[in-house]
């Protein structure tokens, strides 16, 4: 059993609920333990290339650092905070630093959970599962699949447009106002083309007997097994356990409804 085979909808729910739980805590330890857990699970149970994982994860380090400094520079000051450093309107407190670290680690924990999902889930399987398990209407699901298939076509059209402009002697945009104008020259025709294609696709689907009826059978069935629920329970328990460890270490801090 690998992560790649877990039912996509259940995997998605496990991650969304983990994130909702993580958001209640304002201490660095809870997200940190969750990060360790999710990275371990990703590499032990998922067929994931380390290089790809690192490529996706790296930008979040940068985002996390900015979260930390934003929170440190603009902290919510509370009575009893110990001030480390003060300069003009800037006040650095130990508590502010800890909350900053907790938000930075929160971003990273969301990232590891997200990457665990995206690197082990095929896009079409996810959509099929949403339709078969979460009652996404077939009309919309097949509409999304059709639209998804348009992307390479739209890219091709974009290149055609680019070439056509060049043949007619439109100079390459160099200044920012020129670039905005150029963007407009591309966006409207591309969108118009996409809409026309969408209408033709709808006509073709209807003429081949697609009614969007919910009582239909599927060529590819996505199933739910006990293992899927086991995964779900393990993921949620792990987040709760992270909070428990943090509490044992004396770090746990909740969101107190501050506005």
């Amino acid at each position, binding site marked *: 059993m690998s992560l790649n085979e877990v039912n996509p909808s259940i995997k998605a729910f496990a991650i969304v609920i983990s994130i909702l739980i993580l958001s209640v805590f304002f201490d660095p330890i809870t997200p940190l333990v969750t990060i360790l857990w999710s990275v371990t699970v990703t590499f032990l149970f998922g067929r994931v290339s380390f290089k790809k994982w690192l490529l996706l994860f790296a930008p979040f380090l940068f985002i996390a650092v900015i979260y930390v400094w934003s929170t440190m520079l603009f902290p919510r000051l509370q009575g009893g905070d110990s001030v480390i450093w003060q300069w003009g309107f800037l006040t650095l407190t130990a508590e502010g630093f800890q909350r900053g670290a907790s938000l930075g680690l929160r971003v990273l924990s969301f990232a590891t959970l997200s990457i665990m999902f995206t690197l082990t889930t095929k896009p079409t399987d996810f959509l099929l599962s949403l339709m078969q398990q979460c009652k996404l209407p077939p009309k919309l699901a097949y509409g999304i699949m059709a639209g998804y298939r*348009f992307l390479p076509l739209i890219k091709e059209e974009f290149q055609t447009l680019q070439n056509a402009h060049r043949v007619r002697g439109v100079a390459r945009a160099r200044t920012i106002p020129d670039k905005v104008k150029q963007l407009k020259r591309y966006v409207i025709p591309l969108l118009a083309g996409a809409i026309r294609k*969408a209408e033709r696709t709808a006509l073709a689907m209807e003429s081949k007997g697609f009614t969007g009826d919910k009582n239909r059978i599927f060529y590819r069935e996505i199933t739910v097994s006990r293992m899927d629920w086991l995964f779900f329970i393990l993921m949620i328990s792990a987040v709760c356990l992270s909070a428990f460890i943090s509490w044992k270490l004396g770090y746990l801090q909740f969101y107190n409804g501050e506005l």
Partner: protein
Amino acid sequence: MLAKWKLREVIVLSVLAVVFAVVYLLFLQLGNVLFGLFGLIGYDIIFGIWFIVSIIAAYIIRKPGAAFLSETVAATVEVMLGNAVGPQLIISGMIQGLGAETVFAATRWKNYSTWVLMAAGMGSSLFSFAWGFYVSGFAALSPGYVTAMFFVRLVSGALLAGLLGKYLSEGLAKTGALNSFPLGKEHKRNVTV
């Protein structure tokens, strides 16, 4: 919700959502640059762009649910396109879409004037901010900074989603591609009269 929709409308909504999902992912990169320059408030400057498909879909199709569904589908497609966008984004998309939908619902899906479109963008700003407040832990920030973020996002929603969305939709109507949709019909009437 979709029972009263024609297949044509559903597919056009999906295709708009797919196209803007790609745009959204590209703007995430720009957002990160602004984020690097200005800190947390950097995202809020361009946050409105992430609501634009709600405005465009609702303005073109004019049916209950257009704003909500298009934003939700765009978020789902962002997750499908992979990268590091996890399934929690679908919840964000639903909440943003709901923000705009609430404004359109308040007019009983009858009024699509510029002001309503801008208010819908602001509705998305408001809803998404409440969600971000919880998930991103804005409670740890100083209230003054959070208020500034909120107002920047509100303005961004009105301009980048409301006004830009209206402008793009009308550009599309001029091409004639929307002739079988309410916006296209309205445009044709105005031209012939």
